[in-house]
């Protein structure tokens, strides 16, 4: 079976200037988006809030996810702790800058408490929510000091308020789930009748508790980011040197420019579609760096052979011929990768989606640039840098 005629004769080089402009415009818009909008960085890069929540009843992860969706925290990461009804919830709060001065850090605390409050709201059932809305406090999710203050406001003496609050907290700690299930438990624990009346009247007991709320830093800090960038630059230089050694320096330069083009165009699409940049997306871009040069090398390889055979034709003709001769190869090798990426993109679910999207854009761009850009650069060098090097 054949998809392509084997003797295509498309004039690729003719269109080089138009396509340079097109690529240039895409990249320019990418740069514009980068400075105006910036990348949407995922939790790997920005850090966030880590909450440990415990439920009184058996709870499954899908149930918990539904609650988080209601709190508009659907992209939170949820893991069960051991085999209990306790979970870690990692979510991205809007805590982006890690090195803030102390004054700003105060504001951070507030933000991160807001996240926790939103999350609590999402986890309450309707009855609990209406009680909270009526101004009642949740004894399972209020700190000792705050309970004491609340009781004092209700007219209790300092000592009574403090003692009752610490009894409530002890009761919470003594149960496996960390939750007080009903008021009778508190009564048994020795809280006075007078206090119980206040509690029954103006507090409620939700069926879960936040055992801890912690701020977590980014997985990929500034340091790691710098190292990764340096690693990429070194990788590019390494490739440049190898291609220069196997072919010629200008081939190497063309190959690297094509590669940089692919990465920039891919990044433009990440910006345009507001794809969340995570470690997997970075992995996809690194894969592109390694992969997208392959097709270019195949063309260069053929070009090297053709330059030996075709001595009369001008460089443009030889370039076109080489691209045409390897066209089916370029398309089919890309197609096999494309097929797997399409499968991942359409059927892989949310987890793989950003990875697949990046690869999808990258593979298409890489194929286009191998055909239309890599050789065009060689033509540019010929025109502006050197006299025809054929002899």
């Amino acid at each position: 079976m054949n998809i392509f005629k084997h003797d295509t004769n498309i004039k690729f080089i003719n269109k080089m200037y138009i396509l340079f402009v097109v690529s240039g415009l895409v990249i320019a818009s990418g740069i514009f988006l980068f400075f105006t909008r910036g990348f949407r960085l995922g939790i790997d890069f920005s850090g966030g809030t880590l909450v440990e929540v415990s439920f009184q009843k058996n709870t499954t992860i899908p149930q918990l996810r539904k609650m988080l969706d209601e709190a508009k925290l659907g992209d939170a990461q949820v893991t069960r702790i051991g085999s209990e009804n306790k979970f870690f919830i990692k979510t991205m709060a809007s805590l982006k800058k890690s090195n803030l001065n102390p004054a700003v850090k105060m504001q951070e605390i507030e933000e991160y408490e807001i996240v926790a409050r939103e999350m609590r709201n999402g986890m309450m059932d309707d009855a609990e929510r209406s009680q909270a809305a009526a101004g009642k406090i949740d004894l399972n999710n209020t700190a000792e000091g705050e309970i004491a203050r609340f009781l004092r406001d209700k007219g209790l003496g300092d000592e009574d308020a403090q003692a009752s609050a610490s009894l409530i907290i002890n009761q919470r700690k003594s149960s496996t789930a960390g939750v007080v299930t009903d008021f009778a438990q508190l009564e048994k624990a020795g809280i006075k009748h007078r206090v119980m009346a206040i509690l029954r009247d103006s507090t409620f007991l939700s069926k879960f508790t936040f055992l801890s709320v912690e701020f977590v830093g980014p997985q990929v800090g500034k340091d790691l980011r710098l190292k990764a960038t340096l690693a990429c630059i070194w990788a590019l230089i390494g490739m440049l040197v190898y291609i220069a050694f196997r072919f010629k320096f200008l081939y190497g330069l063309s190959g690297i420019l094509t590669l940089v083009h692919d990465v920039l165009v891919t990044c433009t699409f990440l910006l345009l579609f507001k794809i969340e940049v995570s470690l997997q997306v970075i992995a996809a871009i690194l894969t592109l760096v390694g992969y997208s040069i392959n097709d270019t090398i195949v063309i260069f390889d053929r070009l090297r052979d053709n330059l030996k055979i075709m001595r009369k034709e001008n460089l443009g003709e030889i370039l076109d011929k080489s691209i045409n001769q390897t066209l089916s190869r370029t398309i089919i090798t890309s197609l096999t990768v494309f097929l797997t990426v399409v499968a991942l993109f359409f059927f892989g679910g949310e987890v793989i989606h950003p990875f697949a999207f990046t690869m999808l854009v990258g593979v298409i761009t890489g194929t286009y640039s191998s055909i239309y850009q890599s050789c065009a650069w060689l033509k540019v060098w010929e025109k502006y840098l050197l006299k025809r090097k054929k002899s």
Partner: protein
Amino acid sequence: MDKSLNWKIGLIIAVIALSIWMLYPPKDKINLGLDLKGGMHLVLEVETDAAITIQSDMSVTQLRSLFKDGSIKYDKINRKGFDKIEITGTLLDDERKIKDILDDDFRDWTYTFGGNLIGVTLRPNIEQQLRDQSVDQALETIRNRVDEFGVAEPTIQKEGLAGDKILVELPGIDNPERVKSLIKSTAMLEFRSVVSGPFLTEEAALKDYNGQLPEDAEIVKTNPRRLDKGFYVLKAATVVPGNNLKSARRAQDEYGAPAVGFSFNSQGAAQFEKFTAANIGKQLSIVLDDRIESVATIQDVISGDGIIHGRFTVDEVDDIVLVLRSGALPAPLKYIEERTIGPSLGTDSIRKGLTACLMGLFLVVTFMLVYYRAAGINSVVALALNMLILMGAMASFRATLSLPGIAGIILSIGMAVDANVLIFERIREELRAGKSPKSAIDAGFKKAFWTIFDSNLTTVISAVFLFQFGTGPIKGFAVTLIIGIAASMFTAIWVSRVIFDLTYGRRKKMTKLSI
């Protein structure tokens, strides 16, 4: 049959056997990542006070020597708390000189003169900076250690608003206790001269000095696994600080027992040479994390390299080498939380992801079979083998499979088939040029080889650089990339050729090639 074909087949069978051996039993050999299986959730606290204490102690030593150089009389210079230094017994006449020293060399400190007492205190902003630095450094060191141990894809991040806790999540591993102690080891290596010892008890050592140790000496415990008697009196100052260590490696002593080999950098080597030359015949101790690992008599001048011998097991040597290589922790760590956690992905997400991967595989295989017919079968066999090699190699590197990792493997299958495509297209080209099937196959493989070699090697070079200069996840990625390329070169060029030779080689006359 062709003789050369025999050993080619032999090699292929050997590679298959090796891969299966690496992989078997897959349940134990393939680690599943935090997202698929869960693992351990550890929270460590960095004892940043200790980092400040170390800084203060260094400053005390510096002050003492500066006072000595300036012939300033003093009674005592001591650290008080972790961020204060007290100087007593100075003369009023020296006040100017002392102020000059403090102004010039102790800019990070504030000082007060009060009668007989000079109080020097670390500035709070510098102190905070030191604390932050020690946590950052601890984080980096932990990352290096976990990477070197081979647990891929851990989660390592700061926790808490004070920023002095580190959250480490490790995917399910065989020996959690070993990893835990590896992470925690301070790896503070010191070479200190022995004043006297060994002693059975601390009291015995003290008794030797009538209860009052010299100012510059202290009693240090031995590691009971290495030395029989428990205590030595050592000089407090270290001969060569551990940060002059250039490298550490597994070595053997003269009896063939496992030992830790090390090399100093040039500064350390010069210091060590000077010290050993002046102290031949005296005893030297090697102290790791405040415990004496080894005591030896200096026989000769030692400069750049040396070994630490003692009663080590191979695993112990490996662990010490690993922690020495990854660098010392700036402050001790304490585990404050340890939990087992479940997978971070729901079963639904996992199912979807795996389905997509199978689908991708199916599409590639179908395409190759339809487009290249019989030759397609050839490439599918090569692909299956490619996957087996990849999994075997990953198992031997103790790599961890996460869902994106599996997607990456599928992607590498899509890329691996490229080499087959290049060869097949070249064969078609040769056939079109009128060559016989046999010579077309021959020419196809020959001519495509360098193309494949060049394009793959370019990728390998990028991967090598990523491995060399990258850290953490980037390193793991580079390893997978290199293995994938090596496997695909082997299967597409070698295995595929053998299959062609097996199917077509025996036929005397072949007129048509299914490609």
